[in-house]
């Protein structure tokens, strides 16, 4: 996509054995780009070894927000060829690409050779040997810096900042490594120049992962109690929350399993404290029974599901959007609840915060879908704006008389008494109940409470946040997508627009309750609908069919993980169709 609006970005893949330090180098590169006033992201991938196997870092940098990986890498630096074929599918290369590799690593693997990329041997190891205390990743970093035109001063100040605590020696060795790398490729010149801004952006920028962002969103939304059971790739949400909650007077408790963590969160919320837990597919499956309890007892709770490859244990370290079904429909009984999806790394913050607000406002379950590719990717972004969405529960204030916890109200929301409130004593129950909360199997009670639990989420005014809509006003084609597929879809749409196509992108943030009218307005006038999702069984498409009236001409671009949807795939589908 050479003349893409995003062609002002540079994409770099770094691969190597555990010792090579590709992730550190990648992080430094991203940090240096940030220092130079750029935006960017870094995603990671690793082999099956628990520690020390091969790993890869994927960095993309540019003068404005970068939300996803590009179609191909401009530069691939391979410190060695250890199991590189395992990454091959994740590192698309083309004849414009440059591959830097160490001749001492042996023959270039066929899969790399066949890409048509320009292969440039650089004796990274040998160069490293000459530097006392030198590390090969620093030499590689230097080479990369030169190949993309990163100013020398920027790199030096970045190293200084990062290696602050490592001491003078380490800093010296690193600087020497970088210099050696620069010189080694000096002859090649700049092969793919960074688009550097004249002056750094004036906005406050953050370096944050999606999992940290989800944690921050929870805290901004008012969550102060979290129960946790670790699971890849959700663990970092919890690991970020534990120390940070503590600082602000909140609490994270490690539970014995997910059955406990969800129940602890429900207990905390019953106690009046906005509560949350985070997990991934297998853990979510275990939580479903008790999520139904929260819903039926109208005890608000938020669950963040950081999706990974499924089904079952699946592919824990890779991304997929295939928990959509369980999130939408995984509860037994008629169980209306809120399902949202974050559409970018940074949006993990807003979406989580908003979902806390929604769950609390409606005293129901809020399920946030994130995924590995959002959660574990670090981005440089503008500081997410402060949004006015906090937990604001409708509580029953003392004095209370004849308190009816499950009173059937017009809005469907009933004031909730928090323990400590005299006169509010009631029993929260997962059995169907009468308005005062006594178990009931009467048809009128069941109907009234089912209606109430549905009504409150249907009547809520969700405003504009239900979706993010970009692109043409009078589109020929609307692309409907959600979650991490949004980035590549938007990039493709921008490109298509540059090609003269009229494309609009509707990325749903609120999946349940379905916003039928708003959706149908958003797609009005378009003859064609393209659905994009990272699943094998077209879960998103089936959901769209079930809830919305779609135009006659619908196509679906769906693919399971682990590979992310690439902008180019979407674009070729658009072109093919036009």
């Amino acid at each position: 996509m050479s003349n893409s609006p995003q062609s002002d970005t540079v994409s770099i893949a770094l691969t190597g054995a555990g010792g090579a330090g590709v992730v550190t180098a990648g992080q430094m590169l991203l940090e240096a780009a940030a220092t130079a006033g750029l935006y960017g992201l870094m995603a990671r991938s690793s082999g099956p070894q628990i520690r020390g196997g091969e790993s890869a870092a994927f960095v993309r940098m540019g003068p404005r927000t970068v939300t996803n990986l590009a179609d191909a890498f401009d530069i691939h630096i391979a410190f060695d060829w250890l199991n590189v074929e395992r990454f091959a599918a994740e590192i698309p290369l083309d004849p414009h690409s440059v591959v830097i590799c160490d001749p001492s690593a042996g023959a270039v693997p066929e899969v790399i050779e066949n890409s048509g990329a320009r292969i440039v041997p650089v004796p990274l190891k040998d160069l490293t040997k000459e530097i006392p205390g030198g590390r090969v990743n620093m030499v590689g970093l230097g080479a990369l810096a030169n190949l993309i035109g990163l100013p020398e001063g920027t790199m030096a100040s970045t190293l200084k900042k990062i290696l602050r605590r490592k001491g003078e020696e380490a800093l010296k060795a690193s600087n020497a490594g970088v210099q050696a790398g620069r010189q080694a490729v000096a002859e090649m010149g700049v092969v793919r120049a960074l688009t550097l801004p004249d002056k750094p952006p004036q906005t406050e920028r953050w370096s944050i992962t999606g999992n940290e962002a989800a944690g921050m969103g929870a805290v901004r939304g008012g969550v102060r109690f979290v129960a946790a059971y670790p699971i890849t790739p959700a663990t970092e949400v919890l690991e970020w929350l534990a120390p940070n909650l503590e600082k602000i007077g909140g609490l994270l408790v490690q539970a014995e399993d997910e059955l406990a963590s969800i129940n602890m969160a429900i207990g905390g919320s019953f106690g009046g404290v906005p509560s949350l837990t985070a997990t991934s597919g297998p853990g979510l499956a275990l939580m479903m029974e008790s999520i139904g309890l929260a819903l039926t007892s109208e005890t608000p709770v938020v669950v963040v599901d950081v999706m990974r490859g499924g089904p079952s244990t699946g592919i824990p370290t890779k991304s997929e959007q295939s928990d959509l079904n369980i999130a939408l429909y995984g509860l037994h009984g008629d169980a209306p609840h809120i399902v949202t999806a974050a559409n970018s790394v940074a949006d993990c913050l807003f979406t989580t915060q908003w979902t806390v607000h929604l769950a609390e406002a409606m005293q129901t379950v809020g399920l946030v879908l994130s995924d590995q590719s959002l959660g574990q990717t670090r981005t440089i972004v503008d500081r997410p704006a402060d949004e006015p969405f906090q937990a604001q529960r409708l509580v029953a204030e003392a004095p209370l008389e004849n308190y009816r916890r499950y009173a059937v109200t017009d809005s469907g929301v009933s004031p909730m008494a928090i323990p400590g409130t005299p006169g509010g004593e009631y029993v929260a129950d997962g059995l169907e109940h009468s308005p005062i909360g006594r178990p009931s199997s009467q048809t009128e009670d069941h109907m009234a409470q089912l209606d109430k639990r549905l009504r409150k989420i249907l009547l809520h005014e969700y405003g504009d946040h239900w979706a993010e809509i970009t692109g043409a006003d009078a589109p020929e084609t609307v692309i409907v997508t959600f979650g991490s597929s949004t980035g590549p879809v938007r990039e493709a749409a921008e490109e298509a627009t540059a090609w003269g196509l009229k494309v609009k992108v509707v990325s749903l943030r609120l999946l349940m309750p379905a916003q039928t009218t708003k959706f149908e307005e958003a797609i009005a006038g378009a003859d064609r609908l393209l659905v994009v999702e990272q699943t094998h069984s077209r879960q998103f498409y089936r959901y769209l069919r079930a809830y919305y009236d779609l135009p006659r001409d619908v196509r679906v671009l769906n693919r399971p993980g682990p590979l992310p949807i690439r902008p180019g795939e979407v674009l070729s589908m658009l072109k093919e169709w036009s």
Partner: protein
Amino acid sequence: MDGAQTDEKLTAKQYKSDYRPVWCPGCGDFSVLSAITKAMAELQLKREDTAVISGIGCSSRIPAYTSVYGFHGVHGRALALATGVKLARPELTVIVTGGDGDGFSIGGNHFLHACRRNVDLTYVVMDNQVYGMTKGQASPTTASEWEGSKLTPHGTGVNPFQPLAVALAAGANFIGRQFSGDPNACAKLIAEAIQHPGFSFVQILSPCVTFRPEQREWKQTVHTAPVEPTSDPGRAGKRLMSDDGLNMGVLYVGGRPVFQPPEGTGATLADIEQKFTL
């Protein structure tokens, strides 16, 4: 719920709701309900600052019959639910009630970890050695040769679960047992357990007159523990491993520290966000 907003003492009856229990006439759980409300009156717990949490089962219906806050959760998860309540709201008195199936079968893992975690909860199990609510299947505490259930027509063939021994091994700090036929003794034990800091575990033999009518005989067989409670885990271990299941009283009180959540540092959101800023 009567008013009693004044400084008057609350009676046991005032801790009961006006909702009629679904239990069979003669069920032991009636006495346990009385004992719990007596203990509440004894301690003059504030109703609004007390929560009774349970799972599912006949015995788990207790919360609805009290006049304090309550949560009737799902089967087996009462201790986890209660842990959340207590950690989020440390000033509340949190009592957990349930049955042998709820607590030791499906809920066994939370039992282990509640004992270990030592959050200040009081756990009262009405042990009737049967699943009453689902009409009479063997529970973990059922004798291996009991043939009363169609699911296990020749008995379970499995040694009954020893809740007190497991509680001790898992780290519980207060362990006692009573018989529902002696509601005053039950009330006393429950009050002690509530006052004990940290997790306390009370097993109450509570007959299921419908599916285990032979349990009416407990009246004859239960007896006060022949020895004083010990605070030595080794000694308690020996005793509880050879216990006849009918010893009544406080059987172990240890001195482990109560679970203490960390104190906040008074930081603001801005302080936290600072870390993300380039």
